């Protein structure tokens, strides 16, 4: 999967040159999350309103008296981005109908980290998606509470060391498997669910544009590499995303009305998961048998996904 070759054709010509999140934001060096956000916003254009959860993207972008946002933006709290987005969407609908704002489509998007999505924000997300608001929810998943200092979330992968799932002598890191929020969204019958990664920007942009076309709820789960939290070098951010995809740790796919489709080349054999784990300090404590355990799990999940791709019919 050498997506780099494609860039000669696509990039940068097909990418909106306008920046919607300005330089001067305070994300860490090599932040994959703000890069994901940058391309999401490029794919959406001007006519959006952003409801953001408390988290890295909020803190790095909106310290009074400045904002990095070039689009209308609101932050209220940690767990309620989907609910705030619901209100924004309802208001835009009502005010447009009543002639109090311009008569054109404006898309509401909600943005949260993995904690604000899979943990504390899950209820609000479930409610908003079930109610069918015309809204895209973006989970920018860096696999832990990075904003507060790398504490584990339910999206933290098996065995990963965080400050609340440390690699101890008795318990070597995260004991549980990563919660699969895209699956939960499919179970909500959300018409468009996708996974994406900024290491594959064209794929990401295409998915965001597709999500924007949906009249109703859509969910995009974006793998957001975090050199700080994963304890790896900042320059390998993009490579880490690529490795996550190529090893099958984070497969890229989309689900349109229940029909699964892989949006990555399907390798004959996945790359060994060790290639992905080894550059990251959070997996440093893993011995060969641990890596085998992770490998077995990744293959099992991958096969389940392939099975769905093959068997699931659209609604």
């Amino acid at each position, binding site marked *: 999967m050498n997506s780099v070759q494609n860039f000669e054709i696509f990039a940068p010509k097909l990418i909106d040159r306008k*920046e919607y999140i300005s330089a001067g934001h305070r994300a860490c060096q090599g932040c*994959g999350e703000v890069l994901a956000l940058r391309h999401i916003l490029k794919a959406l254009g001007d006519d959006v309103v952003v409801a953001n959860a408390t988290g890295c993207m909020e803190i790095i972008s909106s310290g009074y008296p400045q904002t990095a946002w070039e689009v209308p933006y609101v932050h209220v709290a940690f767990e309620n981005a989907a609910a705030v987005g619901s209100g924004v969407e309802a208001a835009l609908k009502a005010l447009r109908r009543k002639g109090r704002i311009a008569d054109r489509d404006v898309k509401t998007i909600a943005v949260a980290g993995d904690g604000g999505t899979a943990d504390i924000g899950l209820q609000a997300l479930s409610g908003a998606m079930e109610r069918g608001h015309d809204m895209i929810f973006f989970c920018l998943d860096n696999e832990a509470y990075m904003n507060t200092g790398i504490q584990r979330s339910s999206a933290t992968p098996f065995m990963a060391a965080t400050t609340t799932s440390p690699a101890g002598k008795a318990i070597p890191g995260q004991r549980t498997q990563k919660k699969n929020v895209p699956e939960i969204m499919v179970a909500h019958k959300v018409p468009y669910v996708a996974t994406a990664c900024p290491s594959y920007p064209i794929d990401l942009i295409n998915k965001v544009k597709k999500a924007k076309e949906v009249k109703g709820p859509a969910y995009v789960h974006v793998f957001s590499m975090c050199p700080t939290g994963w304890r790896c070098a900042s320059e390998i*951010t993009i490579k880490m995303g690529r490795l996550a995809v190529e090893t099958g740790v984070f497969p890229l796919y989309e689900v349109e009305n229940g029909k699964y489709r892989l949006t990555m080349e399907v390798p004959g054999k996945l790359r060994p998961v060790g290639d992905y784990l080894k550059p990251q300090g959070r997996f440093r404590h893993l011995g060969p048998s641990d890596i085998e355990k992770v490998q077995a799990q990744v293959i099992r999940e991958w096969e389940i996904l392939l099975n769905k791709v093959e068997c699931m019919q659209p609604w």
Partner: protein
Amino acid sequence: MAKKKTEQKKWPEKWHEVNPGCMVFAAGSAANYKTGSWKSQRPLTDNAKCIKCGICYIFCPEACIQEVKDGFFEANLDYCKGCGICAHECWPGAIVMREEEE
């Protein structure tokens, strides 16, 4: 290049000068904050090797690499945090990172 947008006339503000609800009316005004001071190394581009693919522009988390004349790309060092992604991802090897002191 990020535009410079100014909203605050003076800083710090008195209590009655703070915008209601801490709203910020100048979009993109974070550009007033120069993150260039964060970097310990800076990207150097050898235009002879550059094929103008723009991958450095695409993968820059700061959005500080922009196209300049003749289709080459250049990092705005006012904002570049020196993460090194551009050098790492530049497959023709046109970008290298240099320590700031050098």
